[in-house]
């Protein structure tokens, strides 16, 4: 049977409409994503593939998280697991385990690839620097990672925040205060970070800055930092006590070094419950 000419044309039009709809859907999906986090390194490729790069980079970051959990994925929950689900539980890693101590470096390749795909992925840089300076015991490598983050994201407050935190870990308090000041100066104009996150980061930086100033012997400047935190989060009673003590006596109830150490090396696992897996 021969196909008629109008039918052929109709098919072409139908294919064109379908392709257009697919392209439009993809464009909508990509435009939903946050804008690139920095203007640095925005070449033609990053302008064209920006959204896709961010997605791939997030996927690689997710892979680092999976490695941290020793390959345990969130399993679909079934009231009555069938035979297939039971077998899946037997064949796939299951339970609640994390990488510890020296093994933590196993997440680095995925964080490295995440930053190579999207140099604006500050979260990947931050996490890499955190573990390198902490459990891996390689602060000099953490410093290099953050220098690279700063080169790629000169306008991003998080690069300065991480540098400030690292300097504090290394006991370089005046350097830390400088970086934290620089981070706070860049916080209001930060793009691509949601408001709540900025509020939390701002409060955290002010607490670190306050502790650094306490250590450097400027109790009133420290108290001003804590007051600014209390304006953001009025419910922090311990901080209020600390601020009042500093204002009254010039001394805080606990050692600022210890307080800083407790905060810097705290890594509360967000998946503390086994059910999360």
């Amino acid at each position, binding site marked *: 049977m021969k196909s008629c000419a109008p039918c052929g044309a109709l098919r072409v039009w139908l294919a064109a409409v379908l392709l257009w709809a697919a392209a439009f859907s993809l464009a909508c999906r990509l435009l939903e994503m946050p804008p690139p986090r920095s203007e640095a390194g925005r070449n033609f490729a990053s302008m064209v593939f920006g959204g896709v790069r961010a997605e791939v980079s997030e996927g690689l970051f997710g892979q680092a998280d999976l*490695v941290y959990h*020793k*390959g345990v*994925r969130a399993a*679909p929950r*079934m009231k009555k697991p*069938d035979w*297939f*689900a039971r*077998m*899946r539980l*037997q*064949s*796939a*890693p299951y339970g609640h385990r994390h990488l510890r101590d020296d093994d933590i*470096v*196993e997440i*680095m*390749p*995925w*964080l*490295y690839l995440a930053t190579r795909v999207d140099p604006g992925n500050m979260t990947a840089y931050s996490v*890499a620097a955190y573990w*390198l300076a902490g459990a*891996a015991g*390689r602060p000099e*490598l953490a410093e*290099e*990672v953050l220098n690279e983050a700063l080169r790629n994201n000169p306008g991003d407050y998080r690069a300065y925040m991480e540098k400030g935190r690292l300097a504090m870990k290394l006991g370089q308090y005046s350097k830390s205060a400088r970086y934290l000041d620089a981070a706070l100066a860049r916080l209001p104009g930060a793009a691509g970070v949601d408001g709540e996150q900025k509020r939390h980061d701002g409060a955290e930086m002010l607490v670190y800055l306050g502790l650094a100033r306490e250590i450097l012997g400027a109790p009133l400047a420290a108290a001003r930092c804590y007051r600014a935190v209390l304006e953001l989060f009025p419910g922090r009673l311990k901080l209020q006590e600390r601020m009042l003590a500093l204002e009254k006596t010039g001394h805080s109830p606990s050692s600022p070094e210890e307080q800083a150490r407790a905060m810097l090396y705290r890594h509360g696992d967000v998946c503390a419950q086994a059910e999360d897996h």
Partner: protein
Amino acid sequence: MRNTLVIAQAVWIETLRRKDLYVLAALLAALLLVFVSLDIFGVRSMVSYIKEIGLLMTWVFAWILVIGVSVRQLPQEEKSGTIFPLLAKPVTRAELITGKWIGALGVAVASTLVLYILLAGIVAARGGMCNVALMLEAWALHACFMAVVAAMGLLFSTRMNSDAAATLTGILSFASFALLPRVPELAGGAGSLQKTALMFVYYALPHLELFDLRQRLAHDWEAMPLEPFLMIGAYGILVSTALLALGWLAYRRKMFNRDQM
């Protein structure tokens, strides 16, 4: 049985003569070498990413190879006309299908074994270790995966040309691997009729994800307990046999016409 093995041997010889096997292996080795030689933030001594990437590439390699080899066997015989002398000999169609399946599976399983050994060597050279018992389990279940995919490819190629069969096998095996485990979740929010249809699909299609021990192997978990391992292996053999039986049913009365070749 002898006829079956002779046909399988012909498949092995034909595959070894072709270049695609070597091209795939060279690509895989080159890609793995690139990843191994990366300078990752100045840190060394990491092996889990090599295992993970190496295993992923081994799976992709095996998947492409087994589909490519299995789907072209029957259409190639029909297209070249060699099906006539072949069936004129005392070879039944069941023997033909089984021989082709054993041939395609044998090539893929042997190539995969080489890649597993190569990967273990690279990991050892980097100072890492592989649990040998778990590696054997992973390879055995991987072989079951390839058995099911090869049977699926042969089934489709009994009634389609090789391109169509490859596309269909690729889509169906990928969906069975990646999407099928999520079907009960999807069915939870669906209406009664949709739920029944989705659960039918869930139970009817082969669950290829069961054969995947990559995460266990990459993250240094202990070997699988023997009982579930044997059960999953038996499931693989059962599904492969069912697909081969369907292939035989589709092929046993197929008529060939020299004029249409």
